[in-house]
């Protein structure tokens, strides 16, 4: 296998990390919605934590995406 196609495959594999980020972000917001539906008064308290969780979950997926970009464009 030549280097160019190996790079393409590697970048594609690195993007699998986005599966986890998708599940994580979905979890964060489903938990936010169900908790606010149960207790609407708590919205102000839980929303900052939800966005913190969103940012942390999103970042893990972006690690994979950054690796994919590095494979494609740097090496």
């Amino acid at each position, binding site marked *: 296998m030549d280097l160019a196609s190996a790079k393409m495959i590697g970048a594609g594999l690195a993007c699998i990390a986005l599966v986890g980020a998708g599940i994580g972000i979905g979890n964060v917001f489903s938990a936010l919605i169900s908790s606010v539906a149960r207790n609407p008064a708590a919205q102000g308290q839980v929303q900052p934590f939800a966005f913190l969780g969103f940012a942390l979950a999103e*970042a893990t997926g972006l690690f994979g995406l950054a690796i994919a970009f590095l494979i494609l*464009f740097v090496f």
Partner: protein
Amino acid sequence: MAIEIHPLGQFQIERLIPIHIGRLDVSYTNSALLMTIVVVLVTALLVLGTRKRALVPGRWQSLAEMSYEFVADMIDTNVGHGGREFFPFVFTLFMFILFANFLGMIPYSYTVTSQIVVTFALAAVVFIGVTIIGIVRHGFHFLRLFVPQGVPAPLLLLLVPIELLSYFIRPFTLAIRLFANMLAGHTMLAIFAGFAASIGLLGILPMGIDILLVALEVLVAALQAYVFAILTCLYLSDAIHLH
């Protein structure tokens, strides 16, 4: 005909004023220029905004007050008692990262926080500072941070290395989180812009995606500054209160 695209070209460092001291290259680069602009803008907002000290604040003054109160609230809820003395540090970090991220969103400008050396320097300052604060405050007792309370002794053999690892990995995750967000976001914008430029009339579709992505990136820019500041608060809280 495909147009050649270089999505990572936007992160190129250029020497604006070459300065060499001996063999050390301390040139004034486009990255340094943007950092200077960030510092000038933040200083201008706070100095000019609070100059009048009106009882009923105008636009600039309320902006300055809002940013002050936002960070002060963050410290009060996350660090609690004894956190206010670290307010200047957290506020500076937050405003610097926020303005750097936002200035990076302007087309053809430069994103300072997309360089890992910048984010790692910030994260290393936080990590070293927090560790020194913890050691000065608690001395040898600081090591209790790595020993969870109320855990049976055999489990400690497993838990203490994990706690140690998760402590020493902090500067890296803190740095890579901000850097990867900025790098991936801006590269994605450039890639979709490249699609739009290369496929002619159909390019309106990637163009539309790009517009939505800009909205997402503005959100991410603010959110990552917030996350960096709040994690600094949590680490400070760990060092001050030892869990």
